[in-house]
């Protein structure tokens, strides 16, 4: 039985591999050959590990001979390690995936990322790319993640209407927030502090959120975990991809996108200028940003890809409770870079003042 299963799996892999390779253009086939000569690549991963492992696995099954070694380093820690290594001429990373946009922008500005126009670059909107150097793999959309056993349908509707409704007295002490300094944690507060929303949200709104006595967790994923467990009814520090991973496992959670919904390009990919395996790196990045790579990412990781015109077969989008965001708020990277620290400190201080 086990032998049969192994043989079937091997046959399926072989079929996948041969059909994927048959679809390559002559240039891509040439690059694949060069990648196979190098045999391996090192991917510095910033996104949650399990999803990225699943993506790498699909790639390796389709393109045998190119082995991916992953090392997880998040945000600025990855930037620092890469820069320390580069300074010491220890070139290890081939592909960088950084969740901190300003860090990737710095790497591009300082000439550490290879110019690499992916074949699909014309279909990637400008806000999701840094020239022909770096590309956002997926978007992050912030929303409210809630436990289905803890909120009534009316409460869900109320929260979906506007972020301001978290101030309703009935929600006092029932939700959580994370003042952790990370992109997805900052995005909603970046929007609240936008000068154009000064009257609608602004600093006063953040103070009022704090006055609602939310549970405060230093780790944003603990915030989600506590909603999954039912410890908190909902969190305003939620985003779709992380919630989707738990939902796929069967956790009793759902999510809504209050209006307006912050959205930003996450998971910035680039090939190191000093990549020890440049062909394997380019071939992999081309695939990640291809229709196949983006659809694979959507299927196994759950985030929406940045490549326009791809099929959206994320499983939860077919659910009756799921409503795609309608009023999107694009982050302003310049203000993001300038105010990130100040805004998050203000949030942390406001929360502490009410604890």
């Amino acid at each position, binding site marked *: 039985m086990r032998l049969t299963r192994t043989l079937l799996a091997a046959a399926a892999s072989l079929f996948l591999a041969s059909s994927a390779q048959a679809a390559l253009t002559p240039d891509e086939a040439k690059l694949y050959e060069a990648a196979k000569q190098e045999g391996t690549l090192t991917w510095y991963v910033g996104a949650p590990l399990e999803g990225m492992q699943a993506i790498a696995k699909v790639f390796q099954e389709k393109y045998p001979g190119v082995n991916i*070694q992953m090392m997880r380093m998040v945000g600025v*820690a990855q930037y620092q390690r890469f820069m320390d290594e580069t300074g*010491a001429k220890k070139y290890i990373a081939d592909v960088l995936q950084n969740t901190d946009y300003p860090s990737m922008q*710095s790497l591009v500005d300082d000439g550490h990322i290879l110019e690499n126009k992916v074949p699909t670059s014309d279909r990637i909107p400008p806000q999701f790319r840094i020239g022909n150097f770096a590309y956002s793999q997926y978007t992050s959309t912030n929303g409210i993640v809630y436990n289905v056993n803890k909120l009534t349908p009316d409460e869900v509707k109320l929260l979906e209407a506007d972020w301001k409704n978290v101030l309703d007295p009935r929600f006092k002490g029932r939700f959580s927030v994370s003042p952790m300094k990370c992109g997805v944690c900052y995005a909603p507060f970046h929007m609240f502090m936008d000068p154009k929303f000064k009257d609608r949200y602004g600093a006063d709104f953040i103070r009022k959120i704090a006055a609602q006595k939310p549970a405060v967790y*230093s780790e944003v994923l603990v915030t989600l975990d506590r909603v999954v*467990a039912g410890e908190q009814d909902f969190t305003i520090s939620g985003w779709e991809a992380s919630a989707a*991973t738990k939902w796929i*496992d069967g956790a009793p959670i759902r999510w809504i996108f209050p209006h307006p919904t912050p959205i930003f390009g996450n998971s910035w990919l680039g090939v190191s200028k000093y990549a020890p395996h440049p062909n394997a790196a380019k071939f992999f990045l081309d695939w990640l940003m291809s229709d196949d790579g983006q659809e694979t990412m959507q299927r196994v990781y759950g985030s929406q890809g940045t490549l326009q015109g791809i099929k959206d077969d994320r499983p939860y989008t077919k659910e009756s409770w799921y409503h795609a965001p309608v009023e999107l708020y694009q982050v302003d990277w310049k203000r993001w*870079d300038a105010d990130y620290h100040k805004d998050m400190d203000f949030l942390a201080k406001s929360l502490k003042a009410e604890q």
Partner: protein
Amino acid sequence: MSARSTSVPSWLLTALVFGVAILPLLFVIDAAFYRETRVGLATDRSWVAVIDVFTGADYLRYLRNALGLAGIVTAVSLVVGVGIALILGRSDIGHKRVWDALITLPLYLSPFAGLMAWIALASPKTGFINTIIDAMAAVFIHEPGSIVDIWTFAGVVFVMTLFFCPLVYLFTVGSLRGMNTALEEAARIGGATPLTTIMRITLPMCLPSIVASALLVFILGAEMYTIPGIIGSNAGFTTLPWRIFEDSTSVPVHRAHAAAAGTLLLLVTVLGVWLQGRATRVSAKFVTLGGKGFNGRPLRLGRWRWAAWGLLASYVLAADILPFGALLMSSLMKFSAGTISAEVLTFKHYLGFFTSEEMQIALLNTVFLAVVTGVICMALGFMISHMALRNPTRLNRALAFLAVLPVAVPGLVYGLGLVWTFLRTPLYGTIWVLLFAYVAKFLPYGVIVSRTGLMQVHPELAESARMCGATARTALAKITAPLVKSTLAAVLFFVMLNAIKELSASVLLYSQDSEVLSVLTWHYMDSGDYQFAAAIGFIQTFIMLAVVFAAQRLFRVRLDRAFGHGGGR
């Protein structure tokens, strides 16, 4: 051993300790004097970070919080740990070997895994304890509410205490069991009650061991960032190590501030290390050692037997049964849940572990590093302590002091120093850099523990051998080393356990070929996959138990007899 014969090894060892353990510290101190950019350090010098940290109200408050927390945890750990040690070291309670094993079991669990277990157990609405009590109480009370809440300051103290009690216990019970009981007997004959005997004779006699363990717990408590950091945010307080963690990992990075704060902690804890050295030195002056272990009449518990049994059972329940049970439960769940049902249970995490090539490599790396680090720290620690005690030249004493300094710096900051030290060497990116880092980090334990063991062996024994014609090396190998065999085993156990759990340096230095289990656990935790992380944590515990069991068999010693003043027998 003459001064002449030790001069070459002394210099060699000093050079080694300087290169491996002290250089990273110097890099850390140096980093405090740079201007910061958004993502790291600029090339020009600045005093801003040092001034901010050493004079700023915020950082000093965080330091005060860390020291206050460490003080409370130390006090509670002492009360519980010494209490348990008295019961098991001096009373007539039964099944001591079983209790010994159970009391030391928390050493096999990483504090972070223990924290996750206690979050699952004692969160107010969904903690297993609260849901079970709620279900039972609901029969009588309409809305029973939560009984325990881990997300409080008391919760932090509670979890940290559970992990530090075994250290106090091990140091104290060793001292109690190695103590000559003649004075106690005399006190009893003189009409003193058992309580008076304990308070006036027993505890003062092992006070140096208690002080030494208290200082170790205080230092470790003051530098811990995970438990106070995760729970502290919810409870509304921040400690300096957590601030260092945030400064090192959040944008904008405050590397110079982190380094300056690490230096501040270094200064505070150097004082602690120095005091600990004093305490162990003083202990030699007035602890009377029989050389045959505890040979007096055990204290009869009488009607206090049940109270003693209750204390031991409560500790074992809180430190072993509940957290290990919760960790096992979590590792079998698809996601966190307050109630357990068939829908949430799965074996996929264990299947994933044992079928993943990455996990198997990490497993092998972990065991290899633990064993080799243990052996090296045991040998080097013994040599350094031996030279400092038997040939206390200025160089040898300085060497012993320098070798323990890394214990004083938070692991995360020290890890950065290690990165800067090894980055330009061919070792970077290999498993060997982790080995060097582990040796640097755990050598202090080798020095501290072997020192206490060596102090039990009077130099006259080796001197007698020398007078009979033995060389210094022969006397060391044939007389001194066998007498401290159990202390050396203690170093080996302790270092191996800590090497298996080591995270802060590993996470900064690992490469694609040198991943270890603790790093993988962290990555899954950091990715929000707590259940998979729990499975790895549980497997890690089994490895620790297996490694220690094997080492105990090999050395034919028991862990509890090897620590503190129990060495040498």
